[in-house]
């Protein structure tokens, strides 16, 4: 019984309550958010040494039925996600303070409370020890983020919110619920296996059922953005930018891919996936999403929409890597949870900063802005290099491992997909930076009044960008956890 796990779960929850109680006092309310985010980071950080040395921390909370319980565990795979989620929350809290106050948004108390509640769900997913706990927190994330998506309370917000909720809860109910129950009936437990090879299915289980369950699990976690269940993600971009940044680029979608990969590795296991030949078809299937989403991104002029489709595409890298079932493939996939997290949040933060400073949403209107907002666009340039996969930024580590993984799996088709998508990434990111720095402002639109966004936003951008570079140059720390996962 390790109470640190409980503490990690309670901090965002208590933070939520605090925000709700002190809702009318702006400074105290946001102070509570800041303090709880920092506390969470510290608590998660304090678990690092034990997990680093291969220990698994367990905290048991409730037993629902024999084999079904609410139990938390911290192992190296959960640390990957928990570290990302908690550190990005800290950054995002400061950023959203700047964003929401500058734009004088309404209902900031609700916003802050739901924000913390979403992190509560994400941390729960990261630390879940079985499918039921994971499902519980997965659903909590779905429900608690609705108010954030529909924040503006206009028709666009409500439509986006409805689409969001329909996609996420319907897939979870239609696929995940039966899958979970059938797994329970077949195996008598919902606990994850202790390592990635064996899975939890006993010998001699009907393989048709297992394949069906696998497909259900892939589609059930629709937060992973695999086509055809990805429409909610671009729809959710109606939310305020800090929400898009933390949730729809990082926490929510990472909850999706984390759940998917966790289930692939710890419920089905690499042995079963090899035996039933599930890996490579999955890789090709998500390969379609990688390419298709990139092509759609090319066509979008709205910066947030382009980033959204870029997210859809990048998420499938993670699943593709794991589905290759080779050691570098899995490592490349899992490390992308970290790399994509820091780089994509930088990009979204930049989009928000541009909006706050200039009220511009479309890429075509951003020509020449780089001269007045050098830091924002500089960070944007570096983060987009990471998305493309250029050294020395974080994304390179992913690309390298994925390429090695696909070669080791003897899948030249996957190699081709990776190369094509890299070119597409470059095609939709490079022009933004280029035009910002070398383009000319349209006639009649001088730079009057345009300057960098407030420091409360700029500093988080620079920190996130800096971390993207640091984990690109020194990937060892996070790679250690990933290597422990693959044994």
């Amino acid at each position, binding site marked *: 019984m390790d109470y640190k796990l409980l503490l990690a779960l309670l901090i965002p929850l208590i933070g939520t309550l605090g925000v709700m109680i002190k809702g009318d006092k702006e400074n105290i309310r946001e102070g509570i958010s800041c303090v709880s985010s920092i506390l969470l980071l510290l608590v998660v950080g304090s678990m690092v040494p034990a997990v680093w040395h291969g220990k698994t921390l367990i905290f048991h909370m409730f037993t629902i*039925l024999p084999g079904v319980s609410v139990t938390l565990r911290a192992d190296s795979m959960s640390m990957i996600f928990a570290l990302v989620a908690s550190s990005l929350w800290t950054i995002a809290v400061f950023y959203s303070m700047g964003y929401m106050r500058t734009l004088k948004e309404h209902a900031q108390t609700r916003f802050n409370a739901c924000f913390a509640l979403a992190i509560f769900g994400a941390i729960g997913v990261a630390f879940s020890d079985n499918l*039921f706990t994971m499902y519980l927190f997965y*659903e909590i994330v779905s429900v608690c983020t609705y108010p954030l998506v529909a924040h503006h309370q206009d*028709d666009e917000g409500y439509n986006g919110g409805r689409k969001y909720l329909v996609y996420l*809860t319907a897939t979870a*109910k*239609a696929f995940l*619920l039966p899958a979970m129950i*059938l797994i329970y*009936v077949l195996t008598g437990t919902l606990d994850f296996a202790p390592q990635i090879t064996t899975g939890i299915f006993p010998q001699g289980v009907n393989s048709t059922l297992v394949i069906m369950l696998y497909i259900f699990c892939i589609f059930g976690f629709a937060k992973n953005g695999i086509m055809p269940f990805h429409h909610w993600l671009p729809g959710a971009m109606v939310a305020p930018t800090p929400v898009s940044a933390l949730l729809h680029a990082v926490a929510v979608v990472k909850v999706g891919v984390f759940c998917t990969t966790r289930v692939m590795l710890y419920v089905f296991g690499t042995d079963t996936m090899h035996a039933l030949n599930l890996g490579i078809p999955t890789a090709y299937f998500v390969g379609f999403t990688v390419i298709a989403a990139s092509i759609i991104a090319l066509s979008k002029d709205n910066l947030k929409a382009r980033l959204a489709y870029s997210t859809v595409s990048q998420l499938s890298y993670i699943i593709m890597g794991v589905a290759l079932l080779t050691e570098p493939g899995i490592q490349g996939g899992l490390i992308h949870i970290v790399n994509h997290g820091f780089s994509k949040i930088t990009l979204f933060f930049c989009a928000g900063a541009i909006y706050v400073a200039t009220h511009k949403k479309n890429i075509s209107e951003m020509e020449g802005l780089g001269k007045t907002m050098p830091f924002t666009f500089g960070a944007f340039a570096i983060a987009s290099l990471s998305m493309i996969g250029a050294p020395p930024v974080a994304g390179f580590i992913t690309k390298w491992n994925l390429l090695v993984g696909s070669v080791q799996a003897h899948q030249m088709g996957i190699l081709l997909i990776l190369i094509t998508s890299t070119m597409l990434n470059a095609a939709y990111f490079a022009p933004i930076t280029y035009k910002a720095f070398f383009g000319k402002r349209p006639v009649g639109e001088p730079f009057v009044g345009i300057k960098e966004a407030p420091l409360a936003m700029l500093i988080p951008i620079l920190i996130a960008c800096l971390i993207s570079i640091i984990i690109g140059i020194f990937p060892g720390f996070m790679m250690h956890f990933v290597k422990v996962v693959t044994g």
Partner: protein
Amino acid sequence: MDQLLMNSGFPILSVLIFLPLAGALLLIFVKSEQLCRYLALVVTSLVALLSLRLIAGFDITTAKFQFVEQHTWIKAFNINYIIGVDGISILLILLTTLIMPLCVLASWSYIKTRVQTFMACLLIMETAMIGVFVALDLVLFYILWEAMLIPMYLLIGIWGGPRKIYASIKFFLYTLAGSILLLVGIIWLYATNNYSFFIPGMMWQNYPITSQIYLFLAFFLAFAIKVPMFPFHTWLPAAHVEAPTAGSVILASILLKMGTYGFLRFALPITPEATVILMPYVLWLSIAGIIYGGFTALAQSDMKKLIAYSSVGHMGFVTLGIFVLNIRGIEGAILQMVNHGITTGALFLCVGMIYERTHSRELRSATGVGKYMPIYITFLAFFSLSSFGFPGTNSFVGEFMIIAGAFQFDTVLHKFPYLALASIPGAVLAAAYMLRMLQKIIWGGTNNPDQSWITDLNSREIVVLAPFLFFVLWIGLGPQPFIDLMHTSVTQLLQQFDAHQAHSIAAAGSLFQ
């Protein structure tokens, strides 16, 4: 008589039955309306407290009937007053006794006319309901079963909405029609069993197969109307919509459970072979109810109708669980009966609280109150989530066990889980209509009516809803104590069942192919 554990000492069950009746008689002498309310509250609370003694004294290691009391009643016809409790009925009794004080509290300001009669009806209702769950003599059972109709008829007919007369007569006729055949079945059983009405004595008797089928159909009609199973459900929306809040709560939380309780107490043990033969039809009717209820609920603009149709779907899950005939399914079904009682009861109370403020059950007029009623929507959100089986709430556990039972049933009979997968759209629909309602009430759209005058819950209303929330979370996170209460009885039921029809399960399987 070896199924009975006699009660020596305090006659707890008789007290539970007759205390509310005595309270109702006492009400005749009370003039003040406020005093009537307090008296009803005191009596129902006392019954609730006393019923906790049942748990303290209940032996979970035996499947026998406990706290049994036996007295001769009408000697000439061999009719006796025999009452007892086993693992199948104990939770339902507790559900009844614990919900009644909350019903009284919920009617505190809602009922303004003829308070004395209203409270008397509630108390008589309680007597009849507890009686039905504990009766071990068929005549006693039947009398109480029919006795429930009258106070319920009055509750709807006097304090109901605009179409109260239509609704109350429809309710009365439907349920009465169902019970006529039940009476025929009872008389046949009486004649076959040496002129005895003793219920446990009628179980597991290997009646001829044709008689069993007729008997099953007679039971089925009575119970299916009560549940109500699709397509016998049409009385339910009308009754719910017109009934006052307390009436809706009693109807949804307890009365509907009588039907499923009847299946477990009578259909399975008395006609096991007929059950197995007709099981596939009942199962597919349950699936039809689950999906039909879901779609219809999705289309409602009246909040009470929405919850009424959701009940049709939820009770479909209960009958599904009962008729998959395995331990997970039946335990899940009993738990789900309790869960439905808690969750749907609470939802009706929530709708009633909005109705008291806006005087409308239309979803349209309740949109966007979230901003002004934070406490109310917190409760409502929990109950709605529970209603569609959100993990961590009570209904999730019940649904999980029932669907697991259905999967298990499938894997025994065929390779592919048709039945379990067929029930899944119901779960999806439940999420859809509940979230739709929740979204509309909390947020609405861009042109909500002005709700700024609305007041949040007062402390009485919070006291009414809090116990429901407590049980939603308790059963959701730690259901084991509840399952332990029923486990021995259900195991025993299934063992007996298997011994009596092992050969016919294959025949039933062939109906699915």
